[in-house]
């Protein structure tokens, strides 16, 4: 009896000991991995130059002051991204590990040639998750962007990631597009993707040396600038910052922003946009498509200038009108650029038509671009004041005396 219990116990122990073995087989210890935070893709004559920003654990994890750069940038040329990354092992002792990727930066020439095929790779490879953001390098190569060090976050990719997320929430000039959304808009016929542009603001010393991080200013910084509008998977052109905002209002992507409006001669009011919602309604009556965009904006007043009394009911109406007109102007600028010069449907009007009238959409989708170019778009804005801040009438008014 006792023996059989022992035997059973032993059997159980052996089986239990075997179970976790299956999990150890493919283990990669952290100190054998080169954890990449950003990936850059540039064009070369016969393929791509892939740049990987690898986190340097010695510099990042040390408690002492940094005497090594927090990231090391490896680059390799190859016919495909995967091929180039594979050859990076000739330069780095550790396995390139992309699961913690935060940013993918496309060079402008790559973006003009098409980024669609890259996402076949990103989605197929098990190594990539879908939680990184993409950007297009403007005025410099993707490699230069990845080489730039940043003062606030020691890992530049994390700085870019956070900056993109925050700026898209607070200013609305950028767009933090999720990979899933990006892939959907790349494959959909009724909407074209936009990516945020990133540039190096050249205002001093080159920031690829940790010595520049000792300065408080006068060194190169990374900066997001307007949106890159794509046609299909190819870069069609750049939107200015105001046009980017207009895109945000129409596509309903603005979560917060700031608009300065004029009411009357001298008065200026800072309107802090708290939320913005957009509804795109398509109409295909009579085979003539048109789109109406209804934008509802909630805002708070964060500052006045010129003695404008915002406590008066009439003035609030004036202020609302002024803000509505301002947003309409911004949207009109974005529309005319996208419909006219770039000729790309970045707002998803095609999708709206598709949802509204599938049979009509099937008839026009092959020539959607032509229809879109001359399609009338009506933008209606409704602004609503939510809060006027901590004071009522201005504490200082220049009219005094």
């Amino acid at each position, binding site marked *: 009896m006792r023996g059989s219990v022992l035997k059973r116990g032993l059997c159980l122990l052996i089986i239990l000991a075997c179970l976790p073995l299956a999990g150890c087989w493919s283990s990669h210890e952290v100190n054998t991995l080169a954890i990449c935070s950003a990936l850059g893709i540039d064009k070369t004559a016969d393929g791509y130059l892939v740049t990987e920003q690898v986190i340097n654990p010695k510099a990042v994890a040390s408690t002492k002051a940094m005497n090594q750069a927090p990231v090391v940038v490896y680059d390799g040329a190859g016919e495909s991204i995967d091929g180039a990354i594979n050859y990076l092992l000739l330069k780095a002792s550790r396995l390139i590990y992309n699961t913690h990727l935060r940013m993918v930066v496309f060079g402008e020439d790559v973006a003009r040639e098409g980024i669609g095929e890259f996402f076949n790779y990103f989605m197929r490879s098990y190594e990539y*998750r879908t939680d990184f953001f993409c950007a297009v390098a403007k005025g410099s190569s993707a490699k230069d962007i990845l080489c730039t060090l940043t003062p606030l976050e020691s890992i530049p990719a994390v700085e870019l990631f956070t900056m993109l997320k925050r700026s898209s929430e607070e200013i609305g000039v950028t767009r933090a597009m999720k990979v899933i959304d990006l892939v*959907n808009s790349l494959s959909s016929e009724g909407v074209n993707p936009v990516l945020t542009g990133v540039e190096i603001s050249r205002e001093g010393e080159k920031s690829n040396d940790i010595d520049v991080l000792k300065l408080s200013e006068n060194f190169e910084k990374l900066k997001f600038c307007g949106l890159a509008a794509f046609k299909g998977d190819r870069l069609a052109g750049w939107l200015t910052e105001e046009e980017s905002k207009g895109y945000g209002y129409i596509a309903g992507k603005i979560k917060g922003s700031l608009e300065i409006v004029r009411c009357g001669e001298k008065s200026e009011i800072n309107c802090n946009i708290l939320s913005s919602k957009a509804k795109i309604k398509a109409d295909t009556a009579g085979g003539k498509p048109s789109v109406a965009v209804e934008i509802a904006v909630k805002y708070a007043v964060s500052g006045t200038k010129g003695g404008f009394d915002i406590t008066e009911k009439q003035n609030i109406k004036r202020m609302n009108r002024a803000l509505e007109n301002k947003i309409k102007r911004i949207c009109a600028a974005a529309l005319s650029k996208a419909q006219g010069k770039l000729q790309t449907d970045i707002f998803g009007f095609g999708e709206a038509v598709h949802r509204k009238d599938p049979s009509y959409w099937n008839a026009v989708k092959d020539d959607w671009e032509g229809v879109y170019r001359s399609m009338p778009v009506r933008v209606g804005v409704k602004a609503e004041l939510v809060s006027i801040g901590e004071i009522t009438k201005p504490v200082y008014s220049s009219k005094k005396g």
Partner: protein
Amino acid sequence: MEKKYISGHQLFTLFALSSLGGSVIVASSPMAAVAKQDAWLGALVSAAYGMCVILMFYFIGSRHPGLTLIGILRQVLGKWLGTLFAVCYVLFFLLLSTNLPWYIMDFMGHVMHETPQYAISLPLVLGFAIAVLYGIEVIARASEILIKFVTFIFLASILMVLPNIKPDNLLPVLEGGIVPVLKSSVFLSVYVTFPMVSFLMIFPVNMEDVFGAKKPLLKGFLWSNSVAFISILISLLVLGSGIVSKTKYPTFLLLKEINLLDIFTRIEYFISVLWIITEFVVGALFFYSGAAGLSELLKLKDGNKIVLPLALIVFIMSGVVFPSDVFNMNWLRLGWMPLSITMGLILPLLVLAVYGGKKAVWLIWGK
């Protein structure tokens, strides 16, 4: 095998988990490929006619208390034809129990691609064998506990992915008409409905009151279909039909999207826990059905004697049954669909027709 009884609630949990089986993580992809954004309607259609199929299984079983599927086939179709079909069913169940470890191996192979496949399937097949040696009662009791895990993991992950939904992804409704929706419903039924014919090996014998099986069966079916429906609907809402139709494991990709306040993120492997649990339960069920059926066919006194040899065969087969995932995809389309429909719909209908015919003849002759 000695007679063991399971309760109504145990039948419900066992049926629910087995019916869900492998479908939750894979079925939405072929469905979206056919019906695009209307695949969720396909899940509803599948549930509607699946209910009738389950009622048919119940009807067949409840008219033959004390007989397994093997016994029913022999009694209704006669000794020779009945035995022939019984052999088909035993092979069908054993084939299924070799497929399920392969799916786990394929899925885990994406993550642990250096691990030999057999290292992943060994614990599973060992689990099947141990479960069957302990008997159906123990499998059913385990399912009672496991269903709580599964429900919790599923609800938690769906709740966490809810902030990412985009209602526009479902529009326009019924763009391609009703036909693709009906087609897509078959892709779900071949997972959640038809293979459940294996419960005819269990509830007519292992329930004390066979008529009490109706409610648990329907409840279990409702549970598994709700889970399948929700996972398909949410996959479409978050990912869009284009991505869903091109992804091997859409639900897994869906959970990759979870990011709650930057804290609850990178938890997609939770869904694989759910998946491994349901695949294990359904695998154990098929393995039990195959082993019990074989021992009944061979009139063995101690059915447990063949469990380990069968487990060895299943273990070896699990590695070679599909040479590659492309082969598997073609098999699902060209082989599995007709096979599942034949075994889970056409043959039971035949049994029902012959049974009804016999009854009618008997009634007329009786008068």
